[in-house]
């Protein structure tokens, strides 16, 4: 069935836990009754985008995420049970592998996502980075879960994923908000960026080391996007106010949803305007 109106490309960016904000953007599409013609995602954006492309609605994805991360104790129990070891094992840098994303995703992601790219209802691509070639790899075929695992294999947290002989890491390292890869497949491109700290609290308080490292990585992601916008820009650029959350604030899923509400309202208005203008 070909949908009337302009073709819309949706790009969902990487940002770990902050990427939960994407759920509300997908709800915005549902509520407007608009279906993207193509979706691109990086890291958490790839996971949310793939779930939507697999047929989950925004509301269903919201419930899934709350079920997984809503209760910290349950999650830890579930994870620790599967891993059969202490939590410190997850973080050890003495081993070449840290967290195995493929196993983790097989365990956590809904059944609908255990499929291949060509079984998806909406064309979808995931972005990963080739660790050695330092270049972008656009994943668009084969089993979905290994691709999502590669796209969100953040070094130090997750083990790189080897696909087709390439060592792949988190796509955010080369393309944190991958709107450019789908612009030629859509009339209206929507990009959702969750890399930036929009709160901009100035200050001189010295952050703890871990906060400094994750904060610095966030700045690097942000810098890539800022430079990219100088040469090519999407039609609609949305930056949910989730910069104040840490990359690992997975258990603040409800608060992140709440913080993304204004961006959702904003996206609905802009999307409606763009569609009206185009048709």
């Amino acid at each position, binding site marked *: 069935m070909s949908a009337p109106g302009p073709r819309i490309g949706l790009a969902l960016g990487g940002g770990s836990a902050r990427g939960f904000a994407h759920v509300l953007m997908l709800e915005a599409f549902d509520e407007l009754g608009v279906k993207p013609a193509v979706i691109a995602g990086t890291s958490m954006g790839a996971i949310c985008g793939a779930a939507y492309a697999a047929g989950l609605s925004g509301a269903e994805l919201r419930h899934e995420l709350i079920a997984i991360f809503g209760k910290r104790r349950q999650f830890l129990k579930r994870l620790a049970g599967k891993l059969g070891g202490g939590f*410190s094992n997850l*973080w*050890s*840098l*003495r*081993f*070449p*592998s*840290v967290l195995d994303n493929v196993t983790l995703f097989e365990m956590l992601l809904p059944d609908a996502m255990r499929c291949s790219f060509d079984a998806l209802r909406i064309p979808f691509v995931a972005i990963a*980075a*080739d*660790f*050695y*070639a*330092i*270049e*972008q*790899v*656009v994943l668009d075929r084969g089993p979905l879960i290994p691709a999502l695992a590669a796209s969100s294999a953040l*070094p*130090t947290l997750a*083990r*790189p994923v*080897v696909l087709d*002989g*390439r*060592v792949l*890491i988190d796509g955010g*390292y*080369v*393309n944190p908000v991958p709107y450019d890869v789908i612009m030629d497949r859509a009339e209206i491109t929507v990009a959702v960026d969750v890399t*930036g*700290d929009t709160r*901009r*609290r*100035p*200050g*001189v*308080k*010295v*952050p*703890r*080391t*871990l906060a*400094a*490292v994750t*904060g*610095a*990585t966030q*700045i*690097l*992601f*942000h*810098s*890539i996007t800022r*430079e*990219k916008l*100088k*040469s*090519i820009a999407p039609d609609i650029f949305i930056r949910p106010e989730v910069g104040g959350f840490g990359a690992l604030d997975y258990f603040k899923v409800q608060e992140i949803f709440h913080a993304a509400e204004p961006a959702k309202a904003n996206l609905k208005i802009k999307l409606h305007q763009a569609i009206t203008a185009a048709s």
Partner: protein
Amino acid sequence: MKPTGKALQVRKTTEPVVRPSIGLALGGGGARGLAHILMLEVFDELGLKPAIIAGTSVGAIFGAAYASGLSARLIRAHTEEMLGQRFEIVRQLLSARAEPMLKILNILPVRAALLKPEALLEYLLPSKVARDFAGLQIPLKVVATDFYAQEQVVVGEGPLRAALAASIALPALFTPVTIDRRLLMDGGLVNPLPFDIISGEVDITVAIDVSGASMGPGKHPQPSAFAALMSSSQILQRSIVREKLKARQPDIYIDVEVDEFYVLDFHRFKRVLAAAAPAKEHLKRQLARVLSSHTAEALPAVTAEASARPPPRKRRLSSLKRLTRAGKT
């Protein structure tokens, strides 16, 4: 290669032998930045003096030394001495950093018991390096990152060491530096190749990129988590440079091929310099080419030989294209 208004005025009023002004941008990239020494040698060997220098991180340090009036040869000798046998302690200091870093990420709550970059600089820098920007012979712009505002800060005046300390303050390795009530960190987080902050002030912008070239796709071992961590900020800086070059290019872009080195491989001084030797020759040829075409433009009588030369942009673009094309796979 757009001449600024100021440069045009100069041409009108003086003899045509006037040379175009050159802005030199030295990028960040940890130990790979040792290659900057060779690029400074090119300027000495050609008898050229940059009109302004911009530097990020390690690029800021070498830029500051050169802007203080030290010759490239002197900088090379000093660096070699510092990193050589005699200063075993420095090597240990730098390599010892790797171990605490492991601990930091191993066990989350570790206090910021890190190296003070000012103290390290005080120890490492030759005494002839100016104390204040005002004492420099060549104007210098140092890039740092405002951690909380997530934006670039360009420091061009005041105490020099504090600015350099801020520019090299890579998190997990160094403590951040506070200047003007802003918490500053490594400039590579926002601008690893700062040619854009000087391109408006000069005729020719030269950018030295040490953010590292790729090792190519294909069969490689799985990196250890530590190797992945050390390389990852490098990959990010590379990505920033790649996106930046899509919107704007320097007149001369030198991609120093020192990719097999990690950020903290300062002890492999000789090997980094050997790997960067072809880049030095490349810069020399590019500078000679661009200058001859600029001088030809300025001179009323153009010799047949000079006009028959291919436009200087070509070679540079080929390496630029390689870099930007890689992002479009």
